[in-house]
């Protein structure tokens, strides 16, 4: 189920809130929330719920055992077992196909060179990616590691642990909520109208970002990043249109994902949970490093705390550690070399920024900002065309072969810098027809809360007005989103596939 569906907003959410608040008893509320979370997860693809349950109970016991044998080699053993189990699930279901393809490719080449006849030792996995697997496996890993470090006590109640893993607010597309963040709230959460109301506001705002901004941007992306098949891999786009398309994809991916995170945080508050922020105006960043302190913060801090610091952090082999973390960040996003390249791309720029730290500091803000945005926007091509090698399902059952098997990614990048195509006259019409939309996007990307600090009088006034206007504002956002959803057929979240 997705948050931006009429089923979720008008059937699932009211029912889950109703059942959750029927009683003040925490045990009852946790049971209600767990049941609704499992219904949410099982919606449309119920078979994966078994994997979720196995993963949850596996780490539930690992957590208890790690705590029980704290300080002994057995604790380390169960920690390693937990990590192997979680990464094993992740590799089996997310990376199995990718590993098979690469082994198969290597063996084919090996056979060709050395006239051998070796075959890939296992069948190519054909399963689809279980929704949210990248998020919940990381959550459970962080839990067991935190128990091992003594940062948190193991959860003894299996129901509470299952609820932590399966909380529908953040289960399928994050943020990656660490157990330590909500350990107290699981057993004793305090809910008041201020918290619920702020959750409502956050949810409506996130819904608006997704349904209005991300979905309209996606229509432009479909139009300006899609390639026309000419049999020779050429695009029918001018450079202006190609840049416009990739900028719109950057807009889409940000509003899509941050909209989801806003909704998740808002839903959490409606049920009494306080999740950490996952985005802080990333497109206002002054450097690549700054960007990733503002973008998908829960993944960044996870890899910082559980990979970068254990590797030695900035004290030992700093640059190597940065590159490793970034390759892992890329690989987390998907089983494709594109994502590895994407991670490497940013890893390299992070290293360069560290090396040129002094130069960057002296550079004017506007230049730093422009440099960051260009690098970020350009990198989105690796996300959009998520393969380096083309296997177009359209031609799968055909004996007709595409002339070039390389991904359209390369043709698109070529078009960004040099295109023989003239600008289509309809492009200018599209710009005019979306001019208010562009203004809205810019307004929403500006970090107003950084410009107007908490003591700022103007900000205080605006907050005061919002306090009184919030029912009307949120109702209006809900109606606008509903209006567009009624006339929409398909609007999945991009981060569902990670």
């Amino acid at each position, binding site marked *: 189920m997705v948050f931006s569906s009429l089923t979720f907003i008008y*059937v699932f959410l009211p029912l889950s809130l109703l059942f959750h608040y029927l009683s003040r008893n925490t045990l009852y509320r946790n049971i209600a929330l767990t049941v609704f979370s499992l219904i949410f997860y099982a919606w449309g693809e*119920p078979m994966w719920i078994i994997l979720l349950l196995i993963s949850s109970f596996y780490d539930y016991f690992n957590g208890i055992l790690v705590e029980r044998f704290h300080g002994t080699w057995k604790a380390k053993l169960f920690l390693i077992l937990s990590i192997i189990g979680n990464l094993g699930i992740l590799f089996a279901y997310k990376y199995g196909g990718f590993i098979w393809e690469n082994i198969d490719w290597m063996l084919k080449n090996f056979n060709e060179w050395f006239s051998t006849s070796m075959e890939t030792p296992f069948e190519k996995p054909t399963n689809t990616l279980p929704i949210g697997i990248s998020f919940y496996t990381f959550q459970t890993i962080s839990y067991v590691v935190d128990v091992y470090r003594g940062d948190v006590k193991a959860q003894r109640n299996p129901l509470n642990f299952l609820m932590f893993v399966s909380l529908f607010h953040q289960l399928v597309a994050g943020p990656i909520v660490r157990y330590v963040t909500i350990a107290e709230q699981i057993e004793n959460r305090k809910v008041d109208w201020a918290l*619920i109301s702020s959750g*409502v506001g956050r949810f409506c705002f996130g819904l608006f970002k997704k349904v209005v901004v991300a979905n*309209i941007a996606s229509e432009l992306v479909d139009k300006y990043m899609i390639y026309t098949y*000419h049999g020779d891999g050429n695009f029918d786009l001018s450079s202006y249109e190609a840049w416009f398309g990739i900028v719109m994809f950057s807009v889409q991916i940000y509003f899509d994902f941050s909209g989801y995170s806003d909704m998740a945080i808002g839903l959490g508050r409606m049920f009494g949970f306080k999740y950490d922020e996952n985005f802080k105006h990333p497109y206002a960043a002054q450097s690549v490093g700054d960007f990733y302190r503002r973008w998908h913060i829960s993944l960044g801090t996870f890899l910082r705390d559980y990979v970068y610091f254990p590797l030695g952090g900035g004290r030992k082999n700093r640059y190597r550690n940065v590159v490793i973390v970034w390759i892992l960040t890329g690989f987390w996003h998907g089983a494709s070399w594109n994502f590895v390249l994407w991670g490497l791309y940013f890893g390299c720029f992070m290293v360069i920024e560290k090396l040129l730290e002094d130069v960057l500091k002296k550079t004017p803000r506007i230049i730093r900002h422009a440099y960051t945005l260009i690098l970020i926007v350009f990198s989105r091509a690796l996300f959009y065309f998520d393969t380096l090698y083309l296997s177009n399902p359209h031609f799968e059952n055909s004996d*007709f072969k595409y002339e070039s098997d390389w991904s359209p990614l390369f043709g698109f990048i070529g078009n960004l810098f040099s295109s023989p195509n003239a600008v289509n006259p309809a492009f200018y019409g599209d710009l005019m027809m979306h*001019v208010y939309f562009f203004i809205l996007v810019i307004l929403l990307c500006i970090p107003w809360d950084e410009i107007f600090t908490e003591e700022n009088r103007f900000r205080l006034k605006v907050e005061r007005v919002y306090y009184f206007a919030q029912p009307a504002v949120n109702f209006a956002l809900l109606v606008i989103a509903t*209006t567009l959803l009624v006339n929409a057929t398909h609007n999945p979240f991009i981060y569902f596939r990670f």
Partner: protein
Amino acid sequence: MMNLINSIVFFASISSMVVMYFIIGDDRSDIEFHNGKAYLTEEKRELTELQPFTFENYLNGDWAKTFDLFVNDNFPHREIFMQWSVELRKLRGIEVENQEKIVYIKPKKGEQPKFDDQGNPIEYLDEYDDSYSNGLLVLNGRVYPRSGGSPKLAANFARMVSEYAAQLAGEVRVLTAVPPLSSAFIPASEYSHYNGQNQRSLEAIRNNLTNGAIFCDVFTELNNHAGEQLYFGTDHHWKPIGAYYAYVAFCKGAGFTPVPLEQMEKRTKTNFLGTMYQMTQDPSVKENPDVMDYYIPKVQSTAIRYGEFGFKGSAAKVFEHGCSGGATYSTFLGGDRPLMKITTNVKNGRKAVVIKNSMGNAFSVFLISHYEELWVVDLRYSKQNLIEIIRTNNINDLIFAPGMNHVMNPNTVNMMRRLGTQSGVYIPPKPKPVVDSTIVITDTVP
């Protein structure tokens, strides 16, 4: 206090819809009922009904998917929200009068039903493929695909046709009559490159045909009449006049004398809003419904249509004069039948098979003036073995007349290739239509 009001307003809003659904029920202005089933009037489709819950359809995800569609289709006051959404979308920017627009369409997911409960064909933009993947251009209330085909893909089609020509050498003539896409005739100079692209794509067919296969130059014939409206503006098909010029080109290739339009009966249908309007939902297109003049050859004919595997035929019509509204184009052959046999009073002993998609429907009706027997095979739906039909019925001409979009799609080219090898159940050469004045239709103007 405001926090409480905010929370209550939100909860009341999201809860009220379920309550309103039960209050409103079927009392809606956006649905109409046919044969006990509810249809969404504007969208020309059946209203989604709630599936009974079973463990099996829950496990495979069908129940949840249908439930989502059910909630969407039955959302209280859906028609009002739909109207609002059109107005809301206008707020994205500045609307310019007669502005050129590009509308991107997404392929329909999953298999679409081909026929409704009554056995009538359902009109879709079912040929979704690369011809439409670059979006549709809306220009002055008319819609065009933003594509001009590809010579390389056209060559692939020509190779397939040539294979048939080799296999059937000495038995039948193999001809092609492929029309360009409507993009070839966009009345604006900035899009004139599509004309050249279409031409190059079709020339590639000519250049790659071998084994005596005959190329009928439909493009040149249509291009000579480029100033006329050859294609619909609201639908992805061509107008009968466009199909007629293709027929003229075919006659030149086949060595026949085309029947002049004046010798046919002309009829007119108005107010046609077809698939392109459905896909774009553009108001300027809605304001420009198509008018369809069509021409009926003065030939007596009877028609029998068969299902995919065609165990037995049932009576059909070459012209379904009753078709109107969104189904206006189904006037020809009654839409896409998997296989149709037309017998005429042209006693010249010539027999032909036409391989076509829906574009070929308007074209095939002109051929009845030249053949005693015409077999019309829909390349997508027929499971009959083409070679068997040809040999059993002593066919003289095998005519490939699919739309360009199917020529450009390697999958549909392969479907045409498979027609010659698939082992569909064979139809007896002489099915027995019940000779009854009510069901054997004569398209005759004495």
